[in-house]
């Protein structure tokens, strides 16, 4: 894995499995490292607190066994109970500074001198000092000031412990914890791997269904998928159905156009073969018919809905107003008044360009045949939008309307009847 492959763009473009793994690693690794740091710190705090507690007991015992002789000397009535105070350089020491610079030391100090920093704790206070002891061992001293009966001055009593024991214990705990967390991380990643495999199973099945589709073994994505994937499958199936319908429509339109052009072509061919030569009027008339057919089929092709619906839909009224403004300009000569009104919330699931084509053809037709007024309305009704284009022109007789809407049909001659477009 190169560094560049971890950039956000590469994450987005890489496989979903790799992406999920990387995200899991990016989450698990810092979480476990932070956990390890926190647990190690907790362990060290606990070990130091335990050492402090034990050393406080030793300090209390030391204070209890101190006595003052009749000549004013400070002595120990008996040895302290912990045998490490008697074993040389054991790591556990005590020291008492009495009046007249007389000092008592534990046997464990052996021949080492261990000076405490200058300090005068108040009654009841325990002060803590860090020192360097025999063999440069890090030491921690707890000391208090005592007023012994018969003593002429306060006595400094201190117990000292080797802190390296705590450090060694903490390091050992940290190693064991690190190992445990590594095992946990491996377990979590294994769980992620299983989860990813199971989670992406539906996508693998969808890929298989797509492969079947490409191979022609099916004509839609078959199978049941989880709720999160099923909408995508449904949309894809819908898209393919629309695509098939569009292809069918395109074939039909191509066939219609070819059929519509054959007749004028035949007329032109016959005219060319006529004994007197080609009549320019015939050619012009047939060329005009062919141009009309081409324009008509182009308009129908443009008005056909595109495969992709626009996201969030298209607000209808602004598009209608745009078209109305343009059509009115194109019919300036006739002074056509085009009024647009309706529900401002009206939206359709269609591309704005498709809506322009559909509305443009209708409004332009109405403007072409109106006397002076075209009225366009857009109303939200039954979960859809009804766009009505009305004009004050002659309209189409009721008995000819089915001809207009029939495939290949049309109506271009104005006549009297209810006005509509």
């Amino acid at each position, binding site marked *: 894995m190169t560094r560049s492959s971890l950039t956000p763009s590469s994450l987005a473009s890489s496989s979903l499995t790799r992406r999920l793994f990387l995200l899991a690693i990016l989450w698990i690794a810092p979480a476990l490292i932070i956990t390890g740091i926190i647990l190690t710190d907790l362990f060290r705090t606990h070990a130091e607190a335990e050492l402090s507690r034990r050393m406080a007991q030793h300090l209390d015992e030391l204070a209890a066994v101190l006595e003052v002789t009749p000549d004013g000397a400070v002595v120990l009535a008996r040895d302290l109970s912990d045998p490490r105070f008697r074993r040389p350089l054991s790591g556990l020491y005590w020291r008492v500074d009495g009046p007249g610079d007389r000092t008592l030391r534990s046997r464990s100090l052996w021949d080492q001198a261990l000076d405490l920093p200058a300090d005068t704790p108040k009654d009841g206070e325990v002060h803590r000092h860090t020192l360097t002891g025999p063999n440069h061992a890090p030491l921690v001293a707890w000391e208090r000031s005592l007023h012994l009966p018969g003593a002429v001055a306060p006595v400094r009593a201190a117990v000292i412990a080797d802190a390296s024991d705590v450090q060694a214990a903490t390091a050992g705990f940290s190693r064991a914890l690190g190992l445990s967390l590594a095992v946990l991380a491996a377990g979590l990643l294994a769980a992620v791997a299983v989860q990813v495999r199971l989670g992406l199973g539906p996508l693998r099945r969808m890929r298989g269904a797509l492969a079947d589709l490409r191979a022609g073994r099916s004509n839609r994505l078959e199978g049941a998928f989880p709720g999160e994937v099923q909408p995508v499958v449904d949309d894809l199936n819908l898209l393919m159905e629309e695509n098939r319908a569009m292809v069918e429509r395109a074939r039909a339109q191509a066939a219609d156009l070819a059929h519509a052009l054959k007749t004028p072509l035949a007329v032109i061919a016959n005219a060319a073969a006529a004994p007197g030569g080609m009549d320019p009027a015939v050619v012009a008339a047939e060329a005009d018919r062919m141009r009309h057919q081409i324009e008509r089929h182009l308009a129908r092709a443009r008005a056909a809905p595109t495969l992709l619906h626009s996201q969030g839909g298209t607000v209808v009224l602004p598009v209608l107003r745009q078209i109305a403004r343009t059509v009115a*300009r194109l019919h300036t000569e006739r002074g056509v008044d085009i009024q647009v009104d309706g529900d401002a919330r009206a939206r359709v699931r269609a591309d704005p360009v498709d809506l322009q084509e559909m509305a443009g*053809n209708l409004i332009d037709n109405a403007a072409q045949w109106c006397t002076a007024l075209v009225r366009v309305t857009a109303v939200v009704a039954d979960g859809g939008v009804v766009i009505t284009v009305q004009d004050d022109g002659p309209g189409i007789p009721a008995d000819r309307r089915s001809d207009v809407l029939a495939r290949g049909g049309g109506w271009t001659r104005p006549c009297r009847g209810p006005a509509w477009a």
Partner: protein
Amino acid sequence: MRILLAEDDAALRRQLAEALADAGYAIDLAPDGDEAAFLGESEPYDVVVLDLGLPVRDGLSVLRAWRAAGITVPVLILTARGTWQEKVEGIDAGADDYLAKPFRMEELLARVRALIRRAGGLAAAELRCGPVALDTRTGRVTVDGRPIALTAHEFKVLSYLMHHPGKVVSRTELTEHVYAQDFDRDSNTIEVFVGRLRRKLGSDLIRTERGLGYRLEAAQ
């Protein structure tokens, strides 16, 4: 009347130029957008026929530049781009009319005539001034219903004056609107054409405003 024709297709440009010239217009040709922009900014045209898919610079940007510069010449967009989205764009850019290819030459000529009439505030296709009538559709001129034969340049001078009735038109203005850019212009010839028109149409139809130009006025 003088027309700028901006069209990159040589064959169509030739056909259009012939048809417009036959209809009595003086034609300047621009095969690309830069040439069209330059001519539109520097010459006074009565109409521009503008293709959108021009090389070097597209027609829509040329039109926007004209409108931004305050050039109000009527523009007819003639293009193969026939969707309503493109029509809306063209009209919003400042076009006065829009004709999609394929088109009929008669329709183009009718739309050009309509644009010229609208620019002069005229509604009818037949222009009248006293006994003189000029049918813009056929190019036929009559005096009291009697047909009058005019040469091409006489017709151009009369047509321009009839489209601006009552307005004093200078010889320079007439020259600019009667001759194409590459024509060898001589403003003195305008006097000759006006003289001939007076002989054919009546001496009191075209009045001379001394030092200013000519004014078409119906006799009282």
